[in-house]
């Protein structure tokens, strides 16, 4: 089994707010991230897939295809977007980096050919990242 990781970068904005909480509770919990005008991040996405090496091609997965899927399913939808208002995944969910990693997993999982999705890692900043390995 070989694990292959491909990186991509995208920029997006968001803010944290739960309508079930009072304004004070939102402010206390989310702090500066609660500003409804949003703020941006340069996200780094790492997608790891796993599989056996095809003896004919020597590949686990066609990297070109993986790049295209990542672009189509994630970057085209999220790059330079206000996640709360423009990306349906976050109309009902708070676009924390945790939920972002889960949403990206869900977008990619069924779209991959050949190899299986192993991990989605999302860096919000260089010193903070979230890993999601799926529910199972």
């Amino acid at each position, binding site marked *: *089994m070989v694990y*292959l990781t491909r990186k991509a970068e995208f920029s997006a904005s968001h803010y944290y707010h739960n309508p079930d909480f009072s304004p004070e509770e939102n402010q206390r919990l989310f702090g500066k991230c609660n500003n409804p005008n949003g703020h941006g991040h340069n996200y780094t996405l790492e997608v790891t897939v796993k599989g056996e090496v095809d003896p004919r091609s020597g*590949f686990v997965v066609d990297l070109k295809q993986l790049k295209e899927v990542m672009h189509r399913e994630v970057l085209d939808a999220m790059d330079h977007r206000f996640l709360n208002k423009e990306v349906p995944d976050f109309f009902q969910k708070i676009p924390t980096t945790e939920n972002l990693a889960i949403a990206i997993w869900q977008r990619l999982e069924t779209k991959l050919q050949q190899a299986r999705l192993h991990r989605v890692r999302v860096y919000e900043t260089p010193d903070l990242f979230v890993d999601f390995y799926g529910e199972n």
Partner: protein
Amino acid sequence: MSTEENRDIYGKCNNPHGHGHNYALEVTVSGRVDPATGMVCNLVDLDGFVEREVLSRYNLENLNTLKEFARTVPTTENLCIEIFEILHRGFDKAHLERVRLEETMMNSFEYCGS
């Protein structure tokens, strides 16, 4: 594979004149910390082994001309597995956990054995 199939699957990588990468290799070993030395293994031993058995073999070489890639395509997947096997066979100072190979800043490959 046919000429067309090779071009289709490998694209620019199918250029018979070859192309180079600045690979970055990560070797992960595990083990108990030796109470006398405070080390899992002596890094001098690991560095020496990697230098002698891996880097001196592959650095600045045309991989396609080496015997291990005479019948196997030198994709980074296969290079990663080959380096793991070299370490697995020859390095006995600690347990080999993983070999990770970066082909570019955007791509990397990991192998932990079969």
